[in-house]
Each structure stands twice: as C-alpha cells, then as structure tokens.
C-alpha cells in the first residue's frame, strides 16, 4: 500500500502528483472465497478489513452491487457518539468510538473524525428526565457525559434560541465532548484501501441475486458476475437486508424506510458542536467546508423509494428555524434520502442465522454510521469464530423470539 503522508504529497507534488496508484485494485471475482461479504458499505468494508487484519482471514471478497460506498455510508449525516442508554448499546458504541479515535492512523487515511462534541437538547420535563437518566447511566458505563444548563448551552451555541418564550424552550441538554462527525465517504474509501492492501478483493458492480445452500449450509452466491462459492457469507446490506435475507428464505424483523438529509450553502463557521433535538427531529452540524448538514425525521411509510416525502423536510426545517432563527435565510443546496433498516427495538442484529455459515449484520437503521468500526470489528470476530463476541452477543437474531429487546426507541428516541 502506498503510504499517505505530507512528505509523500510534497514529493509527488513536485512531479504533478503523478506517482499515485489506485487506492484499491479493481478486483474481478474469483470462483471461491473463504468469506464473502455482501455489501460494500462502511460496515461490510470494515468487516473485511478486520477479518484480514486481526483474524488472518484474507481470502475474502466484498461484493458491492454499485459503486463502493453508494449506500448509506455515503448518505448519512455522519454523527458519531456513544452516549446510548442501555448497557449493551453503550458498550458496543463506546468500543466503536474508541476505534474512531485512532482510525485515521490505523487506516493511514484521514477520515477527518472531528470530536466537536454532540449536544442533545431537552425541551420538557419529560425530555430532561430522559437526559438525566442517560447521563447517569453513561457515567457508570465509563462514557463521558455532561448535563448542561440552559445558560451553559447558550454559551456553547449562542445562535440557538434559548429564550423561555421559544416554541421549544431549551430546558437543558447533554454534551458528549468526545462525540462529533467524520467524513463519511473517507471511511468507506479508507477501509477499502486498507482491506485491499491485506488481500481482500473488493468487487464493485456485482449484485448478489441469489443465495444457494447445500445440506442446510450456505454454499454459494449467485451474482450478476457469475456464481461465487463461499465458506461463510456475511450480509451487510443495510436498507436491503430484508431483500437479501429473503434469498435465503429468512424473514427478518426489519422494516425499511426512507430517511432524508440535506445540506445548505457553505457559510463561514457559525456552529461548533453537533446539535440534536430528538423531540423535534432536528440534528445539525457544520462541515469543514462550511455547509450545514441537517437530518430529517424518518418517513413513516415503509418504502425503498429514494425520494422521501417533502412533508418530513418541511417539518424538520420548521423546527430548525425555531431553534436557530438565523438559519431562516440560509439556503438549502441539496437534499437526498437513504433507505434505512429499522428493527422493532431500534437496535442492530449482528450474528448467525438459522442457515449455517450465513451471518447478518443489519438493522442499524438511522444510526449505524457511528458504529462502523465497532460493527466491523465484532462482525469479523463473529465470522472468524462462528460465534458472536461478548460485545455483540446481546444483538443476536434470537433476541426477538426470546424477548430480550434492547429498546433504544422508547428510552430516548434518539437514534442518529
């Protein structure tokens, strides 16, 4: 792998940046692999990387139907935090956050993880109750969490309307200083490049169209580029999880919905931390380019349509303008949606399936970007050992039948 560094940039710069080579090979699929990962999103690529890096499993392919990173990894609002309520979630997201903190150097790719802090707002006694509870739990789980007063929030984000007369008065909030945002595309590219360097075949333009089993065990994948045999298969296809699982005759407890986001024109810096309000579905941050990135609420109807309904955008922007009156004259540049895979308890499914050799990693819904490194890490472990790691053991498919749900919906209703 060509090293990326300032001296290399300068040296190559003197020769017109001509010396660089492909970030990852344009691999053609081989007839057979030990492990095939379906889905070239963040989670799939991270899985392949850790398989090769930590478990010595290098005869691995990642199959992506389109171009790498064209799914949710390239569509999300890139918020990273670990202040989840329930222990199981807190542990896996915090583990992930720790990986984020060293990720650029681990991959030798600057994913621009920017720990600008994530502020969650509370607008009612009910919200504040939930936030206090979460901070209490976070602290005992060793996760940095602070409860802020309205005055502290006004100092941190002076452009918020913190007046008592506001429609959504801000009664307080929580701050996770280690949270922040990252450059989403870079995460996909960084993992792809690092995995490729360890021998993983990254196959773009290869859609999986069928899953073949033999004697109750997964045997091969049918793809638009021919049949590929596989010892083990990991399905990591986010919004398409149900479609792929159906190819193996499985029904997952997952519903797919559009989730929308938008950016504004670039402005000189006005907003430092990420600000989220789950009560009114606003979450906003300012990128290094100066654009405001805003996420909208989920579209209620299930759909694979990549255009959400305008109603949802309108609602989010109305609430945004209420919270940030100066954003009213700032203009929306681009708006888009992704298909998110939501479990009834808003927590992911990471583990084996009833078909031997077939594993799933899905259900991250509206909030899986932050989990990318941790999810890949535990899924690689799961694939390599055929068993979940303690971090993902609570997230098995069997929890729905057992009733051991990890309900992040009800608890705080913040999932991004």
């Amino acid at each position: 792998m060509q090293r990326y560094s300032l001296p290399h940039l300068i040296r190559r710069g003197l020769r017109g940046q001509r010396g660089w080579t492909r970030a990852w090979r344009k691999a053609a699929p081989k007839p057979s692999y030990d492990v095939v990962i379906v889905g070239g999103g963040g989670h799939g690529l991270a899985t392949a990387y850790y398989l090769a890096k930590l478990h010595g499993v290098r005869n691995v392919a990642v199959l992506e139907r389109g171009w790498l990173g064209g799914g949710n990894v390239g569509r999300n609002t890139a918020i990273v935090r670990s202040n989840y309520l329930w222990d199981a979630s807190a542990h896996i997201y915090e583990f992930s956050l720790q990986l984020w903190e060293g990720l650029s150097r681990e991959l030798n790719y600057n994913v621009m993880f920017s720990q600008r802090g994530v502020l969650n707002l509370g607008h009612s006694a009910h919200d504040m109750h939930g936030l206090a509870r979460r901070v209490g739990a976070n602290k005992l789980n060793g996760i940095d969490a602070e409860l802020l007063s309205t005055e502290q929030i006004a100092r941190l984000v002076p452009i918020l309307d913190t007046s008592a007369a506001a429609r959504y008065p801000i009664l307080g909030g929580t701050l996770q200083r280690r949270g922040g945002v990252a450059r989403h595309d870079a995460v996909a590219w960084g993992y792809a490049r690092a995995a490729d360097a360890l021998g993983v075949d990254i196959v773009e333009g290869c859609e999986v169209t069928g899953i073949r089993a033999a004697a109750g065990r997964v045997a091969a994948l049918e793809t638009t580029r021919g049949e590929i045999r596989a010892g083990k298969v990991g399905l990591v296809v986010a919004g398409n999880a149900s479609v792929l699982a159906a190819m193996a005759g499985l029904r997952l407890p997952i519903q797919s919905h559009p989730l929308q986001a938008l950016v504004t024109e670039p402005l000189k810096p006005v907003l430092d931390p990420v600000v989220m309000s789950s009560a009114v579905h606003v979450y906003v941050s300012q990128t290094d380019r100066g654009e405001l990135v805003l996420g909208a609420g989920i579209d209620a109807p299930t759909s694979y349509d990549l255009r959400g309904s305008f109603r949802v955008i309108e609602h989010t922007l109305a609430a945004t303008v209420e919270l940030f009156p100066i954003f009213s004259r700032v203009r929306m540049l681009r708006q888009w949606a992704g298909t998110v895979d939501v479990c009834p308890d808003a927590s992911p499914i990471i583990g084996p399936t009833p078909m031997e050799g077939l594993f799933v990693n899905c259900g991250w819904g509206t909030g899986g970007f932050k989990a990318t490194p941790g999810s890949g890490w535990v899924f690689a472990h799961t694939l390599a050992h055929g068993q979940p790691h303690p971090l993902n053991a609570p997230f098995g498919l069997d929890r729905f039948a057992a009733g051991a749900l990890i309900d992040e919906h009800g608890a705080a209703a913040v999932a991004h």
Partner: protein
Amino acid sequence: MSQPYRLPRGGRIDRGAPLQFTFDGRTIHGYQGDTLASALLANGAALIGRSFKYHRPRGIVAAGAEDPNAFVQLGRGARAAPNRLATVTPAAHGMQVRSVNAWPSLDYDVMSLLGLAAPFIPAGFYYKTLMWPRRLWPLYERVLRRAAGLGRAPSGPDPDRYDYVHARCDVLVVGAGPAGLAAARAAARRGARVILADEQPQPGGSLLASAERVDGVPGHAWAAAAAADLAASPRVTVLPDTTVFGLYQSNLALMVERRREQPGDAAGTERGARTWRVTPRRIVLASGAHERPLLCANNDLPGVMLASATAAYLHRYAAAPGSRAVFFTTNDTAYRAALDLAEAGVPVAAIADVRADPDGRLPAEARARGIQVLAAAAVRRVLGRRRVAAVELCSLDGSPRGVVECDLLGLAGGFAPALHLHAQAGGRTDWDPALAAFVPRRSNGVHPAGGAAGALGTAAALRQGAQAGASAAAAAGFTADAAPAPPGGGPELPSAQDAPDLGFQPYWVPPNALGRVKPQFVDLHEDVTLDDLRLTLREGFEAVEHVKRYTTLGMGPDQGKLANPLATGVLAELQGLHPAAVGAPRYRPAYTPVALGALAGRSVGALSDPLRATPMQAWHQAAGARFESVGQWRRPLAYPQRGETVHDAAARECLAVRRRVGLLDSSTLGKIEVNGPDAGEFLERVYVNTWKRLPPGRCRYGLMLGEDGMILDDGVTARLDERRYLTFTSTSGAAEVLAWLERWLQTEWPELRVYLTSVSEHWACLALAGPRSRETLAAAGTDIALDRQAFPHMTFRAGRVAGVRARVFRISFSGELSYEINVPADQALHVWETLLECGRPFGIAPYGTEAMHVLRAEKGYVIVGQETDGSVTPLDVGLRRMLSRRKDFLGKRSLSRPALLRADRKQLVGLRSDDPAQVVPEGAPLVDAPSRRRPLPMRGHVTSSYHSPALGRAIALALVSGGRASLGERLYAAAPDDRWIPVRSCLPIFYDPTGARLHV
C-alpha cells in the same frame, strides 16, 4: 457617467431610472432592470470574488443561475443574505454588496498565496495528510474551517415572511422561454389549466438575450405579449420570479416565488418568498440549456465568459462585457455572439474554432466583417493577473498561432439541456451525439421541449413547445377537438428563424500537443482542475459519483450546472469510454438554493406546531400559574401565591387535596369514543383486560400493550351505553393511541363494526379531588345523586353540573374521593369557576401537574412514559392481575417470551432514602454498592422522586432488577454530582395502602 462599459443604446433596462449601490464600499451605477452582475460589468468591475479553495480572482461567467463564481453577500445584520448570485439578483438602489471569501480585500487576498501550494494540495489532499500528531487535528481543522465557507450567516432572526400555496393544475410549464410560452399557449387552448413559472422577472428566456424576432417583432416584445395574453386567461397562472426547484414523489412540484420589494421598503430588501406546492397532471420541461465552457489554462480569469453570456449582457443589459474580445468555439453559436458584439462596437480580435473547416453562414459573415477566424485552433492559455490581458492561441497540432491581446474571452463549448428536474424525478436520459450532451427521455409525465430537449434555435423551440403543450394537455385529458376559444387568439405557431446547423464538434480534453499548461478548471466553484480529474482516475475513483465525492466536483452552490456536463465529456475522453458509460452525477433538489425559511413556510413562530389550549388556559394565566410543556399543551405546573416557589405551591396544593379539596384541569387527556356493535370486542383485543361484560355506567382502568408486550398507554374507559365506550388516554399519547387503534381497525380487523372519534377537545375535563369534593360538587349544583351507594367508585353518571350537561366519572388519580367532571368545552370555564366558588367554604385550591404527580406517586400509580419507557411490561409494574386469561389481546403472546419472565427483570419498587429530607434525583442510576469501577453494573434507575408533603418525607419510584423479590434491600443512587445516596426499596405504595379513602 462612470459606466464606461454601458452601451449607448438598447437593452431591457430603464435608463430613466438610474440607481446606485455599493460593492465592497465602491459605488456602482446602474439602471432599473440591471442585475448586480450587469451593473458591475457596465462599471468595468471584472473581479468580483475569490475562489473557494485557492482564492483565485474570479469574475462573471454566465448571465443566469448557472454562474459558478458570482456569489456575493447582500445586506447586513438580520437582513444579511449570504451567497446570493449576482447574475440573477436584480440591482436595487442603495444595496450593500460585498465580496465573499477574500481578506483583507478582494484585490489583495492573503489566502491567494494558497495558489503557490496548489501542486501539493490537489483534490482530496486532506485524506492523505494531517493525521499526525492526532492532537493537532483540531488545530488543522480550525484552519481549514476558517479558510472554507463562503458568506456569513445573518446575525438575527429573519425579518422576512414566507408562506405557501397549494395548487393543482393540468399542465405545469417550467420556463417561459419560447418553448415554454408556446407550450402554455397550446395547453391552455385545449382547455387545460396551466401554471407557467419562470425564475426570471420577465418572460422570454433566451429571447431576452438575443436580437431575434418572433412573428415579426423583437423576441422580448413577443414574449411579453404572449405572457400577458396567457395571464389574461382565467385558466392560466403566470408566475415570474418563480423557480421550480424540485420534483418530488407523486409529481409534486415545488416552486419558490420570490416576492419583490414593496414601495417604502429599505433598499435591497428581500421580501421573503412563497413556496408553491403544485400537483400537476403533466409537466412541460422548457427549462432551456446551459452553454458548456471549454478547457484552457487559466480559464477562470475574470473576463472569461460563456459566449452566450456575452450576448446576454449586450442585448439584455446593454453592458459590454469587455473592450476587446476573442472567442473560442466548437460550433457556430459563438459567431452570432461575436457578430453582435462587433455590431455593438466591441472589437472582436479573433475567433479560435476547433473545427477544421468552419464554413457555415455565420463564419462566413464573420469573415466578411473582417473578424479573424482561426480554424483547427484553440486557446492554449489565458494570460493576465486579475483579469484577462491576452490569450495564447495555437493550432490543435500545437503550433503557436500568436498571442492576442483582449480583455474578454468568450467560450462556446456547445449546449447541455437543463434537465435537472427531470433527472431528480428519476427520469432517464439519452446521449445525443450531435449535441454531445444528455437529453431527457419523455417519462414520468414530463414532456421536454426546446433547449431542455436539446433543440436549439427559436423556431425549433416554438415548434417543440407547441407540441409538448398539446401532448401534455392531451395526456391530461384535453384534446384539440374540445378546445374552447384560444386565449389571445393568433396562430398556434408563431414564426421565427430556424437556427443554422450548429456543426458542433466536441472538444473536451485539450490535445496533448498543446502541452500540459495549467491550471485548467473543470469546476470553477470548487477549484477542480483537469489535473485533479486525472489524479482521481489514477487513484481508481472512476465512477462519476466517486469523482464527484473525491474532488467535490459539482458540490458548490451552483451545483455544477456548468461543470457536470463538461466533466462527463472530459472523464469519458480520459478513460476512453462512451460518455453514456460515464453518466452524470445524480441530480438532487434544489435546482437553485432555497431559503430554509421558505421551505418551512408558515410553520414558524406562532404557527409552528401551534400550542393547544384548554378552555381554562386564560384563567390559569390570570391566576399566576407556572406552566410546563406537555406534548402540544402548556399545563399549569402549580399556582404559586405571593412569595411561594413552585415547590412550595405544589406542596400546598397536595395538602389541599389530601385534606380538603382541589381542582385540576385535566382537559388535555385524550378522549376517544369507541362506538358500534363490536366496540366491546375491539376493546378486548387492544386492552389486556375484559370489557364486554362491563355494565353500562361502569368504569375500568385499562392497559394497552404494543405487539412486543410492552406497556403502550393506560387510562380509564367507561361504558356509556350498550354500544358506546369512552376511553381516556394519556395527554401526550392521545394522537399516537388513536393512530394505533385506527391502524388495527383499518388494516387488520376491518370486519369489526367500530367507529373511533376523538372527542378530546369536545369535552373539557375537571378533576375535583379530595375528601370534600362531594360537598363541593353538591354545592355547585347537580342532579346526580352523589351518595356512596348511588354513585360508587369506578362508575359514571350523566347529568347536569352547575347547570351544564356533564358526564361525571368517579375515578381517581390521587387516591382521594374524586369526580372527573366532563363538560362541553365551551361551558367549561363557567363550571370551573362555579366549582372554585362553591368550594371556597371547603378550602378548595386549584392544583397543577406537579401536585398531581406527587399525589399519584404517593399511591404508586405509574405514568406511562415516566415509569415506563417502551421496555416495561405489566408484570414489571406489578399489574399481572389485570391480564385476562380468557381472551387474546395485543401483546399477549409476547409476554410469554422467556426474557420477559426472568426474575431479574427490572421491576417497579418504591424507594425511601435513608435521609428523609433527601429527594433522590430523577433518572439517577441505582447500584448495589458505590464503586469507582467503570463500567459499574446498574440495578436500575429512579423513575419518579418527590418530597411528599402528606408523609413529610422523600419518596421515589424506581425500576430495579429483581426488585420485587428483594424488597427492603439497600441500594445506592448515583447523583449527578457524583455523590452516592443510600436508599432502601419498598412496596411502591406510600399512602393509604388499603385504598380506604377511595371508597368513602
């Protein structure tokens, strides 16, 4: 005066209305009808901004929304408008315009030194560096952030107003150029209701920027007349200044109409906007085409402009974009522009034409006029510091053809249809080799016409427009036969000149023979160069979306309107691919940027999620209540009297209820009438307990579960009569519960004969609670027999209270004798006041939600959403006895799942702090023993916690793992200030455990 580049004649400006504004403090003169850009050009200002990354000097490139450079900051303070495009902003007297992204000044921008570093900071450089040491990344980032960004956000709330309109029409015509006007006419003649929208203040589109004639009159005059005719028709709505910016699901077209300055407005005021949500049956896409720039070194210097833009400034604004011009072209259109310039007195020094033998009518005309035409030639490099000073010409084989001095270079790289809306809606496109551009395929109810369909020339646009208008109308059900009288009359197809064959020849990547001169910008806004694209491909980012994301091509506020069509050709050539195989980056709304305020529309301020008010709201206010937000309501928290804190007041109110009588406004509770022969059956399915056998006149507390067995809502339901039940829901759950019930009724059990009606706002609800409530109610006057036998606990009676028709429920959320009096909302205030008046001898006090919370906690009554959080079952809160064994209900099967039966589930308990004065903070986690270890296993958390005035001590409710089986155990609560508070668990009932007070 001081408009050295203003031509003496012509233009669509009003020379009788001069105006002036400032640009970076400098006075600029112009006329009504100018844009900021045209006035700046007329004043000879070429440099108007600095580029995003390298801070290179930039000028005006286009005459419309596609300009990648001309972003300026308007106004100040709360009226500041960042990143407005000078090419589409009408000039107004007194405006303050500033350049963006330059410091200390536009002429001398320190950051332009970055240009020296350009070789080392190519596309995506930041992915490769700034990783060490990790500690410094925040610093690097701060520098990056300062350097990036463009304009500045306003400093205060937006003074403008926005509203919205819903509209339907048969045919929406996007664009009022020749094609759009013809289409609107054709559709309207067939009887279709038409909306014609154009982003410009005047109709005419391309006609405004040329000297062409239509029907024998100047094009702009024809357009104005045609638009006026249309506007006169009752079936047609003509909307100038209106941009159709998005096509959403179900053909929902979103348009933003800018509202112009009103007389008396401060100068430069933007008046907000109106968002139109139009659902047309059909859409005619007549949005025109954008000219493509061409690559050569320094093709970004001020003075380099699209050939079509030179013509636009000339004809429309009578502004000469330079004093000596050179054109660089791949087709005949540049000749028209060159001839027009020459005609207007601006010398044209040369036309470099990449074609071997430009021999059309226009090239011949140009030669005849003495303009030097160089065939098989290209501009190799533009020379100059802050604006064009000369161009270096050479043959395509590399041989030099001289350096020509000029201050204007017109680029004519051919035209690409503006098919953004079509593509946003998922419409397919085809590659048109003659045009070397993507053209829209007709689909999704979108009918392209004119430039947007790849047709060039006014005659073709008129023809296609008329056809598209007719076919769109026909598709919407209006055929020619049924056509009523045409608006305006006249022949369907006006006469105009056909454009000569363009003779277009693609020219994407300059031939190698020209040498690798740099920089050659593909995307001016994002400073993406040809070398960046080469590097990007070299690194394997080949998919067009990868190129876009890696280089940020097309991601500026101009959305790559010029860059993307050029990039497709360049990328194809660099990779040896067919352009169709490369494709175009995905188009996303908005076509041009739209203010968030405009998208939010009316839903701001008082209309943002409007607050709901009970009939007693004003009374509460007048009584000095402090309020809390609960869902869409503001409920009185307590009624502090002189000198009292909220806490004191709530304590007083609690005691009033426990000892005497209190009155609570609980009108916010959700109320749903469940009506029909199967109402009982329906309730049995959605509630855990039984209903069919509940006799009319009786009430029962019900619990509703989700399919997962978790508590969803609770509340009392009364059987009003044989076929009618009234269900109370929690305040914040009201809408959700109704939706939940409807969902089951409509999608799963349509056979049930049940109708649901929300009566939440119809009935106000007054909770009269306390040992003296019976006397108070009697004193207020009622025909209902109130004695214990006649009206026992958990029953309901209809009658009159204080002279008003009422439904009285003897139910209690406080543990005291209590009557929940429901009266029609419009008479509620009278009843409320009467009760307070009549209760005075008994010591009545109004009480708020804080006291209500304390009272119910003393009794251990749960609040859904406080004791429960979507993960709590009836078993967990000790309500197993409510679960019916005899029938099925939603969530029943889930309850038998092993994890829900485990002994270590979190269960509801009471807590007593060791120190009776110590109120444990709500939300605090509970552990077995204090420790510094992290993670520290938690047993549960405090759900509710108060000081109980009746008991004179702190009480709390909590969910504790295995809590029911180990009552009396010692636990520690972690306070936010990291103190540990020792507590002991107990049964979650603190007051009147036998319930004796309820049955008095």
